């Protein structure tokens, strides 16, 4: 065990995507090994730089892209100097020296101004990590540094650009690469006309060949951006008012009110050179990410590794894992050997993926091209020695993920090259698992390697895809690696005990959830009987009806054709069936807070209907047990309270403690929050029931840590959101999904989580199983960092489900069908004349 005093001092310079990630990885491996201090020139916690284009385009609020908000540093005991730039590492006295920057300084510039009279900050170290990233390259253009001209790298840049654009009619973007195009698309949403200026004869020259460049240009122009290629800007001209126009080297000019420069990036290396470390194009590192000083390491865009610089995040994640292995001592000899890169353009309305080389290197290279100009589709493959050396997919990127795998792992291409672009007609997977190296990552969602899977098959007796998934998590993300896992099983065991029905969403329809959902969506199937008719050969399966009904309701919140026979009896009569066939009634009591008036009504109902038992439930409300079906409508009407949904697979309750209203420890208003939560999500259906709670402080009197979702108030007006907790048949503490600042934010992330669970949970899988299966890291990425870009959609879809909610007890006045609340009918004995002729 490490005693506090014995912790080593780690100082991290640069608090961007690489710096924060490596710290997370280290904390995962060895939470107590280091006292950690971070210098970040930007005055914030770490945010997702990749999403800046979406922020500029208004699709994402700046506050939404924070991955490590300030609270995260505090919670993890990290001392963060935000807004402080490190100037050098004093390697003799072993301290890192920094100075606070002026508020309005451009963090990444070489001569960013210090705050007036700022004292030097010194932090002693045992180990230093440099993760200073890179800065935009500014081409030599006259006047490019003045007002109205911008660079695009930080969240502050975004704000400046958006602010300025408000006063402009026309904007020019210098640079037609990945970032330039994203910036242009973002600017378009600010009601300016946008022109992209590219010096090369085509767009994205680094990733595309000439033909794809030309097609991309058409697509880009199609979304309303003007494109000029082969133009070099010579001067930014201004009047007193601001920018007036740009002058090009060919003598032409372009009227514009502002310029955004996106002409490439350069590693930030001053700290390293000022400290005497070896710097070439970037800070030179070996395979353990060590610089020329054995106590100093580096990673990210500032690094030069095996002569290579990187400008994408994928390699950074790999470097961070290696460096964390090395520093935490988990695997001191871990090595990073370089990354192969592929990229996708994240411009709305443009589908583009590219990897590797864009042109053949010799006559022996095969080039496979498919064109569909009318639809803007272009696919090109370069195959060398039967392996993919490069690929471009424009207009249709369905094959991108498979190709990327094959390219990264150097997997041999199939004989029929067409299969690479269009999939194999026999449906046989293209990837040959046996050919993959042992360390190849099979499951990209959960980071599971081939060797781990083989080990599970050999040593843990996993004989089916499902068992491998249970043991390793492989295949539990997007599911696209399942065929590879099956192949590995085949290779190891000779055959696969493959039981496809393991993966069916319901037993009676032979499709796993994602395929089932796709079929239902594509065919527009709105009722359970129609699912059986179209997808199960007409065979109605009673075991599948309830699950299908729940799924359809999730998929079509307001258009679902509600066939009542597909519901479990509880959901037909909106009450919980008891052992003797009577029912229990639990009215909704928001946040466990009731009124004398409600209590009197409950008491009167209990007397009037001779209710056999009135009981306080474990969910902070009142249960009337033993009610006959025919009395249900009367009971509800007399109660005059909405249904508490104590009977259905849906949002049930949100318990609360007393919180700030009365409790002397209360840090947050847990009652108001739980009532808001309950009012919003009441009755929203899900794969299984959801029970929530809010607690006014970490004493957790309402048991929020062990709820499907729990919100716990902490010091500083913030709320921690836990998901996947359980304290029923299973007991599990929830995982921290996110820490937020307000009730509204709590509601938003709860909504996202619920919707994601509704879409990806298996039927009857509680959140404790779901969260453990998907993994909190993945959930955080998807729901908080929005790594898949689905956040907005999830928000909108849960909103629809919420809007579609109606109190089912309203059916007291208008039954859904004639006999809904009828008691037993009477049968009669008859003598019937019979003709046996």
């Amino acid at each position: 065990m490490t005693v506090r005093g014995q912790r080593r001092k780690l100082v991290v310079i640069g608090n961007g995507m690489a710096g924060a990630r490596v710290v997370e990885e280290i904390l995962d491996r060895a939470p107590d090994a280091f006292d950690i201090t971070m210098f970040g020139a930007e005055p914030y916690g770490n945010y997702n730089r990749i999403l800046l284009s979406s922020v500029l385009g208004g699709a994402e609020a700046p506050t939404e892209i924070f991955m490590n908000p300030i609270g995260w540093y505090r919670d993890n005991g990290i001392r963060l100097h935000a807004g402080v730039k490190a100037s050098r590492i004093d390697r003799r006295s072993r301290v890192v020296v920094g100075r606070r920057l002026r508020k309005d300084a451009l963090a990444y510039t070489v001569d960013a101004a210090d705050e007036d009279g700022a004292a030097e900050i010194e932090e002693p170290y045992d180990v230093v990590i440099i993760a200073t990233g890179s800065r935009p390259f500014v081409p030599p253009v006259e006047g490019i540094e003045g007002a109205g001209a911008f660079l695009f790298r930080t969240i502050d840049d975004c704000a400046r650009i958006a602010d300025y654009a408000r006063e402009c009619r026309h904007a020019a973007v210098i640079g037609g690469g990945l970032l330039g195009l994203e910036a242009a698309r973002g600017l378009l949403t600010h009601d300016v006309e946008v022109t992209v200026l590219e010096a090369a004869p085509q767009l994205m020259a680094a990733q595309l060949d000439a033909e794809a460049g030309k097609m991309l240009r058409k697509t880009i122009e199609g979304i309303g951006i003007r494109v000029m290629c082969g133009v070099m800007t010579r001067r930014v001209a201004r009047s007193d008012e601001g920018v007036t126009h740009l002058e090009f080297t060919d003598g032409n000019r372009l009227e514009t009110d502002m310029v955004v420069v996106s002409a490439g990036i350069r590693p930030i290396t001053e700290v390293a050179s000022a400290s005497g470390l070896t710097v070439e194009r970037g800070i030179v590192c070996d395979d353990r990410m060590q610089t020329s000083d054995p106590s100093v390491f580096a990673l990210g865009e500032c690094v030069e590794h095996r002569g290579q610089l990187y400008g994408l995040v994928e390699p950074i994640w790999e470097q961070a894992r290696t460096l964390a292995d090395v520093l935490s001592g988990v695997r001191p000899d871990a090595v990073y050997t370089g990354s192969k890169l592929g990229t996708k353009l994240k411009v709305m309305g443009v589908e583009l993926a590219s990897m590797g080389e864009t042109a053949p290197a010799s006559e022996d290279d095969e080039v496979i091209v498919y064109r569909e100009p009318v639809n803007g589709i272009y696919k090109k493959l370069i195959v060398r020695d039967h392996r993919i050396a490069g690929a471009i997919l424009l207009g249709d990127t369905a094959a991108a993920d498979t190709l990327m795998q094959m390219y990264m792992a150097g997997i041999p291409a199939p004989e029929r090259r067409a299969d690479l672009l269009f999939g194999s007609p026999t449906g046989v997977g293209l990837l040959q698992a046996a050919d993959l190296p042992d360390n190849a990552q099979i499951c990209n969602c959960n980071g599971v390697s081939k060797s781990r899977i083989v080990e599970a098959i050999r040593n843990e007796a996993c004989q089916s895809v499902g068992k491998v998934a249970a043991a390793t998590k492989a295949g539990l993300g997007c599911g696209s690696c399942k065929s590879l896992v099956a192949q590995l099983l085949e290779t190891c065991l000779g055959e696969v005990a493959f039981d496809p029905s393991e993966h069916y969403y319901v037993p009676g329809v032979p499709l796993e959830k994602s395929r089932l959902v796709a079929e239902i969506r594509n065919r527009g199937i709105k009722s359970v009987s129609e699912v059986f008719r179209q997808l199960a050969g007409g065979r109605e399966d009673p075991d599948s009806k309830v699950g299908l009904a729940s799924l359809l309701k999730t998929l079509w919140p307001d258009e679902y054709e509600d066939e009542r026979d597909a519901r479990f009896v509880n959901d037909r009569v909106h009450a919980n069936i008891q052992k003797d066939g009577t029912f229990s009634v639990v009215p909704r009591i928001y946040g466990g807070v009731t009124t004398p008036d409600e209590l009197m009504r409950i008491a009167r109902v209990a007397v009037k209907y001779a209710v056999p038992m009135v009981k306080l439930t474990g969910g902070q409300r009142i249960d009337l047990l033993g009610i006959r079906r025919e009395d249900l409508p009367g009971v509800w009407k007399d109660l005059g309270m909405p249904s508490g949904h104590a009977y259905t697979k849906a949002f049930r309750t949100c318990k609360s403690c007393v919180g700030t209203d009365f409790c002397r420890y209360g840090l947050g208003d847990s009652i108001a929050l739980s009532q808001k939560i309950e009012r919003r999500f009441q009755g929203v259906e899900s794969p299984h029931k959801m029970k929530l709670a809010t607690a006014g402080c970490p004493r957790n009197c309402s048991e929020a840590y062990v709820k499907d979702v729990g919100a716990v108030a902490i010091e500083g007006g913030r709320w921690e959101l836990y998901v996947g907790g359980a304290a029923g048949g299973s007991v599990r503490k929830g995982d921290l999904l996110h820490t937020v600042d307000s009730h509204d934010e709590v509601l938003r992330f709860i909504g996202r989580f619920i919707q994601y669970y509704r879409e990806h949970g298996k039927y009857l899988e509680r959140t404790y199983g779901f969260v453990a299966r998907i993994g909190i890291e993945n959930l955080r990425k998807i729901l908080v960092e929005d790594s898949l870009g689905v956040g907005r959609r999830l928000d909108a879809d849960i909103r629809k489900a919420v809007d579609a909610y109606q109190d089912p007890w309203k059916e007291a006045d208008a039954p859904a069908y004639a006999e809904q609340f009828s008691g037993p009918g009477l049968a009669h004995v008859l003598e019937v004349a019979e003709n046996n002729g």
Partner: protein
Amino acid sequence: MAETGTRTVIRVGEAADIPVGQGRCFVLGDETIAVFRQRDGRVFATQNRCPHRAGPLADGIVGGNHVICPLHAHRFDLETGNGSEPGECVRVYETEVVDGQVRLR
């Protein structure tokens, strides 16, 4: 010449009184009978009391000529009465629909 006689049947009311795809319970003296109207139009009848712990089969889920008990999900074949658990079965009645009336035998 054709032979004419009488037989005893049980009349449980209109088929239309049983919601589509569901069951409904009818009382005959001390007995309760569950009558089911499957979505494909077929009508079945069994004892209402589940042999397991007396759950009301009429409140079960119906389909593919089977009913699933609402209490513990034991399953019964509506044509033969055979149950999913060893040793459990239910009495089944023959059914006919005459002029919209359901009759059992």
